[in-house]
């Protein structure tokens, strides 16, 4: 699938097709943001923002129905769509509301992982580029965060989205998540952050706590390290080759205390195999730890985390009214659709296989006989109107189909869970 076909100059021509021929899965999108209609006006009070042609940015867009959303998007043909919070009133009418009463009430808990935040620890690419080597970082980040959000925080409905170039988002859609306060969001983000510091900080991960030295690693770290360790050797030592050049070795050594640095400098003169070099490093750290009376000093673990642990932008997660790029947006530079990621197939997810808008428009033109038959059968069971039937067929004929399916599963899981909640509630209310 050659995606070198995508030319950003064509975007204005392709977008109308994308929105009209219903690649954009409007009905699922509406289903998602209505959350089963449990809260009144949840969809109607949701803020959207559009970035239009010539970089015109409009906020406080809101829609009263799926139809209105479709019509407006097809009319305005936004280059970029952002989703904001659910407010106390319809965002499009916010100026008419008495000042101070228009407030953001709820929003999904979101996380943003951007590959540029790892630039100081990846040598294969920098800035906007990614490759299959550094994609491993995303793999690790998704695994660690997904596990923590589910097991530690008890969230169930997570939508992971690949943004089309160098980042992923996580949308935590549980009821409880959407109701979190700013302080709670910030606390969750802090809990998940281990890599701290900007340009000026060399040692970004510090595991030892001078006030409360720990004898052995706390539980949450053991869990994290078990994931990181699975990838570390192959990704960091081999792919990123962090011990391969003097420059990169120096970067690693900069994270170590003087005495270990000196000893390593000596032993690295003879030992050139990076795997063995890493082992030597770990041995020295271990030896120093067992000789030290202070609490554990885990320099080797710190290095592993500095090179691999997820780096979040806490500011994205904190705000209830923060606007975030919508799933199924098109990335203007690469043309790729922001698609949901199926975590069951995470190991085989290839960001370079994600379809571009030009690809799917192209695929649309190709007749696919076998698919058409299957869909005809389904249509007979389907109670929707002819137009929509036709439209559903459209995206199913393209590479976008499998990603929309992931979205469908996600929605079905939420629906099942809502049903379960309602049954529980009605059980409790029965007076026997």
């Amino acid at each position, binding site marked *: 699938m050659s995606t070198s076909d995508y030319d950003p100059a064509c975007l204005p021509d392709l977008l109308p097709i994308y929105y009209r021929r219903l690649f954009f899965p409007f009905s699922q999108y509406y289903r998602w943001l209505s959350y089963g209609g449990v809260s009144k006006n949840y969809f109607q009070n949701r803020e959207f923002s559009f970035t239009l042609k010539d970089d015109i940015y409009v906020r406080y867009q809101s829609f009263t129905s799926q139809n209105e959303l479709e019509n407006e998007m097809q009319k305005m043909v936004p280059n970029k769509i952002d989703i904001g919070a659910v407010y106390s009133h319809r965002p499009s009418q916010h100026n008419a509301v008495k000042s101070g009463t228009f407030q953001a009430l709820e929003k999904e808990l979101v996380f943003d992982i951007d590959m540029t935040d790892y630039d100081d620890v990846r040598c294969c690419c920098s800035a906007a580029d990614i490759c299959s080597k550094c994609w491993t970082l995303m793999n690790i980040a998704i695994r660690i965060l997904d596990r923590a959000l589910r*097991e*530690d925080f008890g969230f169930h409905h997570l939508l992971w989205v690949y943004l089309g170039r160098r980042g992923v988002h996580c949308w935590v859609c549980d009821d409880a998540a959407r109701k979190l306060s700013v302080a709670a969001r910030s606390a969750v983000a802090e809990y998940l952050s281990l890599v701290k510091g*900007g340009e*000026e900080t060399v040692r970004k991960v510090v595991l030892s706590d001078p006030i409360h030295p*720990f004898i*052995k690693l*706390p539980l949450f770290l053991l869990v994290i390290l078990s994931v990181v360790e699975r990838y570390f050797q192959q990704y960091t030592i081999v792919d990123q080759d962090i011990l391969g050049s003097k420059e990169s070795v120096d970067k690693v050594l900069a994270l170590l205390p003087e005495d270990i640095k000196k000893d390593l400098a000596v032993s690295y003169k003879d030992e050139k195999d990076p795997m063995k070099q890493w082992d030597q490093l770990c041995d020295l750290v271990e030896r120093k730890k067992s000789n030290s009376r202070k609490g554990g000093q885990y320099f080797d673990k710190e290095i592993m985390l500095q090179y691999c642990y997820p780096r979040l932008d806490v*500011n994205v997660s904190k705000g209830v009214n923060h606007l975030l790029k919508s799933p199924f947006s098109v990335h203007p530079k690469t043309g790729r659709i922001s698609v949901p990621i199926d975590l069951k197939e995470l190991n085989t997810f290839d960001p370079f296989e994600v379809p571009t808008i030009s690809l799917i428009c192209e695929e649309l033109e190709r007749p696919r006989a076998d698919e058409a038959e299957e869909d005809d059968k389904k249509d007979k069971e389907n109670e929707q109107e002819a137009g929509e039937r036709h439209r559903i067929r459209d995206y199913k004929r393209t590479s976008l189909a499998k990603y929309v399916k992931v979205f469908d599963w996600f929605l079905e899981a939420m629906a099942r869970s809502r049903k379960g909640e309602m049954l529980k509630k009605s059980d409790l209310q029965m007076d026997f």
Partner: protein
Amino acid sequence: MQFSGRRKKLIGNFQNDLYDQCLQFYGQPPLENISLTEFETFAVERLKLLKTVENVGVSCVKNSEQYTKKLDAEISSLNFPHRGGISEYEKRRKDHISHFILRLAYCQTEDLRRWFIQQEMDLFRYRFNCLHSKHKTDFLHKNNLKYETVSAEEKKNLKDKLIASSYGLSGTKVEEHDVYKVPFQDALDLVRTRKVYLLAGNAYIPHHEIVTIVLNDFRTRLSKALAMTARSLPAVQSDERLQPLLSHLSHAYVGQDYSIQKNIGKISLEQIDALSGKSFPLCMRHLHKALRENHHLRHGGRMQYGLFLKGIGLTLEQALQFWRSEFVKGKVDADKFDKAYAYSVRHMFGKEGKRTDYTPYSCMKVILSNPPSQGDYHGCPFRHSDPELLKQKLQNYKVSPSGINQVCPTTSTHLTRFSTVCVKGFLKLNLVEDAGFSLNHPNQYFTESQKFLSGGRDIKKEVDMSQRSQENPASVTHPSQANSKQAHEEMGDLDSFFQDE
């Protein structure tokens, strides 16, 4: 709180019951009459106490010996309830009433509320921790704080995980004492710092950590109460006896916020480069340099630096021109600047959106919130920079080696000393011993520095022979009004010695 002439007869027993506990949640307002004198005295003394709480919290590690000693002393001297005792009735009554009076003074704005809640929480935490374990449990019961406890069986299953997650928790402690299970939203401080075992959205809190949960509760209640108080404030303020006192209380102890710039339009854009070398604190100098070099700053940097510039007197038009001229040298064309970045500059000046006129960040805000990450240049260099890089930077700014050693914080420097260290930088740069101010705001640094350089204050000069290779600028001793111009010129020579290249 009632200020009418209604007289309530308090029965002796009732009095004793009312104040039978050393510590309280301030759930019920006091119902009695007091004299205006008492009203004023109580309020002022509590304010002194809270101010001490703030200062002590900033200069010592919380709950350290030093902290405890200082706070103990202040609480005793101001006659507030201490570690429980028999004849504490009067003190507890004062505690109760003074708290409610200060609510009136501190409920009016977001900033005041935040300050008040923070100090009351710190005070509460301190007093709760002083309580004996039994009294702690009594307190929970008395105040109907029913936190769900974990069953013995569940405790057994989770014992290893609990021990591995909470500091200072042993197997016996888990068995003997209660472990509480609360939704993680109620234990944010412990979650944020990873000091607690989390499972499926619940935090498992050992008994000795319960104060954090109680504090959370305290904060929530106080926050709600303040909001309610604010609504009924107009009625109270109409009482002329009280209005002046309340207004005096709320203005007296919160520092200047630099939101009303006295010098609007007095700074020209051409001066900024020179000013950054002379009068900007290190953080702003750093940001200015990064902006000049990269022709760009990320959001955190734009906010911190942009608001600072507003605070020193830049007008909106100047600010727009400043940012645009710099960004345009980089990757952003004028059009894009107008579309994307101009909005945020106007926003800073309160011309967009909520129209809040944002105030420049204080040192505490810079140090404690929004730490910089990769690609950022904001924050406090004394807090956020690597010591080695900081040293290098100071060398580049031509601070002498002895100066650098004094200025660079060691790893044991307490978080809140960074403002003090920044001032040391000022001292070393300007070769004085005593700055005459204690720093808590970058704009304060600027104002003080400008004052100093224009000879508006008495200064004690430090003679550092190694630095004075040129003329003798040391003749400036006590510049008076008449000599200020001369002093300024001599200062100029010294300054150029310290300019960036």
